[in-house]
C-alpha cells in the first residue's frame, strides 16, 4: 500500500515536470465545426525568429509572410509599389512625398492615424542597427492633415514608395513600442512587440520562443476578413523535417522544401515559383589569376549552366540569363547584350581556389560540378567549403579566386539597382568580385539617379550589361523555390519576392 502511494506521489510530481519538458503545440483550437468560419492553417516556416520577431531585422519577413504586419505600401508581382495602409501617394518635390492613409485599424482596436504611422516610422529610423531598407537614407515623417503622412528624405529618393514596402518598415500601434518591457540591456530600447499590435489580416496571439507561433484572424482587417480562422506556425529549420511534416499531414503548407526532398513530395503538393535569387560565380578581379580578363572569359565559356539547372537543381532552377532572372518579370524584355567582353584565353593549368558555403545544400554540389567544368577547360581547381558566417569576411577581403554565391537580387528595398551598387561598384559593401570599373560605376550611378520606374529598369539593364561585360560575374542559375502545399489548401500566395505566403484568400 505504501509502495502504491509513493508511486502515485511520484507520478503526481513527475507529470507536471515532464510536461514542462515538452514544447507547447500551440493552436488551442478556436476551431468550430461549421465550414463557414474556416479552419486553422498549419504552416511550417524555414527560418525561426532570430530576434524575437523584431520587425527591424530578418524576422520582419516572417511577419509579412504570415500576413501579420504591413507597411504603407506593398510590392506587387512586378516589383512595383502598390497601395497598402496608404491608399495613394504623390510626390511634392524631389525630397518629399505625401501618403494618404486608408481607414484601417490596428489589431489592438485603435485606428491607424497619421500620428501612429509617424511614430512607427520614426522608431524605425532610430533603431540600431537601422533596418536594411533604411540603409544610407535619412528620413523624417510628419502628420499632414487628417489622413496624410508627409515623408521627407535628406537626399532625393526616387524609390521611396517601394522602400516603404519593406517588411522592416511595417506599421505597429503605439502599444508595440510601449516601454522596453523591462528589457534594459542590449536591444531593450528598440524592442517592438508585434503581438496584437499590427494591422494585417492575422493577429499574433502567442509566440513560443523560436519554435512556434499562434495567430488568430483579425476580423476588422481593412482588406476583408481572411478565410482561414487562424494560423499555427511552426519554425522547422531542417528541410527534410519540413517535407516530412507536410507528408504526414502535420502541416498544410511547408515553406522552402529543399531540392533533394522535392521528389519525395506528391506531384500535386509541390509548387515551384521563380525567385529573385540568382546563384552566380564571382571571379576575383583585383588579385590572382582572374585579374586577366581573358581567363575570366575562359571561365565563363567553360561553364555550362544548363547542367547545373537540370543536374543539380533537378529543374527547379532556370539557367542563368543575367543578374536578374525570370522572376524579375520586366527584365527579360529589356535585356541588353553584355558589352566589351574579352575573348577567351587559355587556362593552361592555372590553379584557382573556388569557394562556397554549405548553408544551402545545393551550393557545394554546384561548386563540384563547376570544378569539373573548369578543369576540363584547363584550370586546376581547389574547393573550399565552409559555413557561411565563417567565410564571409574572407570572401569580402578577396581571399578566394572564385566564389559561388546565392544572392537575392531584390534586396530589402525591392529596388533592382541596390544589388548592383552593393555588389559591383568600387564603394559596394558586398563586392566579393572586388570589381572596380569606371564604366560600371557610371552606369550604376546613372540608374540610381533615374526616377521613372520604366527608365530606371532600362538603366538597370544597361548597368547589368556593363557588369556582365567585365566577366566578374557569371550567372549560373535562377533558383525556383519549392513550396509544399497540402492538396486541400487553396489560395497560397506564391510570391517571387518571398514576402507573402498566407493571404486573406488562403484556406483549407
Amino acid at each position, binding site marked *: 500500500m505504501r509502495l502504491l502511494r509513493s508511486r502515485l506521489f511520484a507520478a503526481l510530481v513527475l507529470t507536471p515536470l515532464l510536461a514542462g519538458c515538452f*514544447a507547447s503545440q500551440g493552436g488551442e483550437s478556436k476551431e468550430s465545426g461549421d465550414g463557414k468560419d474556416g479552419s486553422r492553417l498549419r504552416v511550417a516556416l524555414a527560418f525561426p525568429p532570430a530576434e524575437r520577431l523584431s520587425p527591424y531585422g*530578418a524576422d520582419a519577413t516572417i511577419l509579412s509572410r504570415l500576413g501579420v504586419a504591413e507597411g504603407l505600401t506593398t510590392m506587387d508581382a512586378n516589383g512595383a509599389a502598390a497601395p497598402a495602409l496608404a491608399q495613394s501617394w504623390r510626390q511634392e518635390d524631389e525630397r518629399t512625398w505625401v501618403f494618404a492613409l486608408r481607414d484601417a485599424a490596428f489589431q489592438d482596436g485603435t485606428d491607424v492615424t497619421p500620428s501612429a504611422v509617424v511614430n512607427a516610422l520614426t522608431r524605425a529610423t532610430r533603431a540600431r*542597427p537601422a533596418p536594411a531598407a533604411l540603409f544610407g537614407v535619412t528620413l523624417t515623417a510628419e502628420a499632414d492633415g487628417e489622413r496624410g503622412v508627409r515623408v521627407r528624405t535628406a537626399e532625393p529618393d526616387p524609390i521611396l514608395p517601394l522602400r516603404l514596402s519593406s517588411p522592416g518598415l511595417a506599421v505597429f500601434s503605439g502599444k508595440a513600442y510601449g516601454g522596453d518591457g523591462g528589457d534594459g540591456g542590449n536591444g531593450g530600447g528598440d524592442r517592438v512587440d508585434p503581438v496584437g499590435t499590427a494591422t494585417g489580416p492575422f493577429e499574433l496571439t502567442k509566440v513560443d520562443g523560436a519554435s512556434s507561433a499562434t495567430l488568430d484572424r483579425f476580423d476588422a482587417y481593412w482588406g476583408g476578413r481572411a478565410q482561414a480562422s487562424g494560423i499555427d506556425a511552426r519554425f522547422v529549420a531542417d528541410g527534410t523535417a519540413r517535407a516530412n511534416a507536410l507528408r504526414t499531414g*502535420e502541416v498544410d503548407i511547408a515553406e522552402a522544401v529543399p531540392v*533533394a526532398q522535392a521528389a519525395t513530395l506528391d506531384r500535386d503538393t509541390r509548387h515551384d515559383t521563380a525567385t529573385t535569387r540568382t546563384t552566380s560565380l564571382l571571379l576575383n578581379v583585383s588579385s590572382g589569376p582572374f585579374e586577366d580578363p581573358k581567363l575570366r572569359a575562359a571561365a565563363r565559356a567553360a561553364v555550362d549552366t544548363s*547542367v547545373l539547372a537540370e543536374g543539380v537543381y533537378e529543374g527547379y532552377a532556370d539557367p542563368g540569363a543575367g543578374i536578374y532572372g525570370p522572376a524579375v518579370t520586366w527584365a527579360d524584355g529589356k535585356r541588353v547584350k553584355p558589352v566589351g567582353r574579352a575573348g577567351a584565353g587559355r587556362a593552361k593549368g592555372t590553379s584557382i581556389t573556388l569557394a562556397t558555403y*554549405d548553408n544551402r545544400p545545393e551550393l557545394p*554540389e554546384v561548386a563540384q560540378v563547376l570544378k*569539373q567544368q573548369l578543369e576540363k577547360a584547363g584550370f586546376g581547381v581547389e574547393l573550399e567549403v565552409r559555413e557561411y558566417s565563417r567565410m564571409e569576411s574572407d570572401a569580402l577581403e578577396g581571399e578566394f579566386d572564385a566564389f559561388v554565391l546565392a544572392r537575392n537580387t531584390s534586396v530589402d528595398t525591392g529596388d533592382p539597382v541596390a544589388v548592383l551598387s552593393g555588389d559591383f561598384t568600387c564603394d559596394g559593401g558586398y563586392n566579393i568580385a572586388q570589381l572596380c570599373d569606371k564604366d560600371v560605376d557610371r552606369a550604376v550611378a546613372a540608374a540610381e539617379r533615374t526616377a521613372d520606374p520604366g527608365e530606371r529598369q532600362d538603366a538597370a539593364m544597361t548597368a547589368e550589361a556593363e557588369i556582365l561585360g567585365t566577366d566578374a560575374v557569371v550567372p549560373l542559375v535562377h533558383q525556383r523555390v519549392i513550396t509544399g502545399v497540402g492538396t486541400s489548401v487553396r489560395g497560397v500566395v506564391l510570391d517571387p519576392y518571398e514576402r507573402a505566403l498566407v493571404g486573406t484568400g488562403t484556406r483549407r
Partner: protein
Amino acid sequence: MRQHVAALLWRAALAAGLVCGIGLLPWLTRTDPALTVLKARSAERDPTPEVLADIRDQLGLDSGPLHLLGQWLSGLAHGDAGRSWISGGEVLPGVLRALGVSLLLMTVALGVAAVVAALVCARTLHLGARRRLDGRRAGGTGSAVLAALPEFLIGSVLATVVGVQWGWLPALGWYGPQWTVLPALALGLPAGAVLGRLLDDLLPGAFDEPWALAAAARGIPGRRIARQAVRRCLPALLPNLGLFVVGLTGGAVAVEQIFDIPGLGRTTLQAALAQDLPVLQAGTLALILLGAVSTGACRLAARLLVGPALRDGALTTLHRPAPPTRRVQPVVHGAVLIAVVALGLPRDPLALNTGERLREPSLAHPFGTDALGRDLLARVGHGALDTLLLALAISAAALCAGVVLGLLPRLSGPLVDTVNAVPAALGALLVTAVAGGGATTPALAVTAVAWAPLAAHTSALLAQERVTLHLAATRGLGASRWYLLRHELLPAVLPPVTRHALLRLPGVALALASLGFLGLGAQPPSPEWGALLAENQPYAERAPWAVLAPAGVLALLGALAVTAAGGVRGPGRRRGDRTPDVPPARPPSPAKERVGAR
C-alpha cells in the same frame, strides 16, 4: 577530505577556465563577433561598417572581452545569465527549457540503451548462468555494426520509414510522450550497443570468479548468479554511462535537427557558430554541472554496488580467460572490406556526370551513383585509405592519452567530465583557436575529445584492479609501484580499453567529417567516408544505396575492429589468483600454460 576539496577545486578551476575560454573565443580565433551575430540575425544583411559598429555598440564589444566576462560572471552570481547577443532575450529561461527537453530525451534514450545493452549481453548472460561460457565468445558483429551506425542515419531512417511511410509514430516535434520514441531510439541504439559491448566484454570474467562457481555449486539459480555478475561488472561501466548522460544531453544535435526538437544541442551549436557568448557560456556551464552531478551519482552507485569489496580489497581481477579465439569472423570482415576497396580503387571517384545521378546499383555501378552521378564504389574505395589511416592514428593517439590520463584519475576525472561536456562545435572552435587552422587541426580536435571515454574506462577498471587480491599479494612480495604498473595493472587494463577504442573507431571517422562546416577536415569532393555519409544524407530516402554504401563499410570496419580485437590480450598475464578455480573441463589456456611454466 583534503582530496575531495582538491578535486572540487580542480573541477571548479576547469569550469572557470572553460567559461573564460569561451569568453575569449572571438578574440582568440580573430573572428569578429559582430559579424557572426549579424549573420545569425539576418543572413542576407550586408556587413557594412555602420551596421557592425551599431552591433558592437549594442553588445558593448568595444569594452573588451575581460570586461564582458566580468559583467557576465557578476550577473551570474545573482542568477542572471545575461541576454542573448542574437535575440536580446534572457538567456537563463531559454537554456533551462532546452536543458529540460534534452534531459528528457536523454533519459528515454538511456532507457532504450539499457534494453539494447541487455539484448547485446543476453547470450553471454544466458550461457554464463548455465556455466557454458567456456570457449565460446559472443560474435559481437551485430552490436559492433549497430555501434558504428551514426545517429543521424538511424534518425532519418526512423523518421522516414516509421514516421512518414508507416505513420506509426510522429516524425517530428516534441509535444508528448509518443514524440520521444523515435529520437530516443536513434540515440539509444548506438549508445546501447557501445555499453552492451563493454559489459559483454567484462561478463565472462565475472562468471569465471570463484563466487560464481561456488554459487553454482551451492545450487543457487543461474538467474541470480547472472544478476550478481551484472552487478559485479556495472561499476566498471558506470563512468562511461555518466559520459553518455552528458553526451546525449548536449550532443544530440543531428537528432534534434531531424526531429525538430528544441533541445540544448541545437541551442549551443547555434550559439557557438554565431559566437553568442552568453548563451554558449550558460549552456556549457549547465552541461558541466550536469557532468559533475552525473559523475557523483555514478560514484555513489559504484560504491553501493561494490563498496565493501573495494574497501576490503576483496576483488579478483575481472578479465575473462583468453579463450581459443576463432579467427574466422575478422578474416571474413577484413576480406570483404579489402575486396570492396580493391574493386573501387581502379575506378574514378571524382568523375561526375549529372545525367547519371542517383542511379540504382547496376553492373556498371555496383553500388549505384550519388547525387552528382559519381560511382559510389569508386568513392568508397578511394576514401578508405584516408579514412582508415586518419581514424586509426587518432584512435591510437586517443588510446595513449586515455590510458596515461586514466592512470591519474584524480587529475583526469574532472578533466574527462569537462571535456565531455563541451559541445562538439565549441570544442573544435577552441582547438582551432589554439592550434590555428592547419592540416592537423581536425585530427587534434577529434583527439581532444576522443580520449575522454577511454580515460574514464581506464580509471574505472583501475579502481577495481588496484584492490584485487593478487595485487595485494604481489605488493606483499615487495614489488615496486613501477613493477605493479608494468606487470600487473597495465596488462589488465589495456586489452579492454583497446577494444573500447576500436569500437569507437567508426565514430572517430564520423566526428572528423562533422568538422567540415568550419572548413576543417575533408573538403568536397574528397571521398572520405564520413563526408560521403554526410553529403548523401539528404538523398537517404530517394537513393538509400548512396548512404548504405558508406554506412556499410563503416559498420564493417566497426565489426572488423571489434572481432579482431577479441584477440587483444595482455601478454604474459599472470593469473596466479585464478588458476585453482579453473574448471578441469576447460581446455588449458595459453595463459595458464605460461603460469605453469613459471
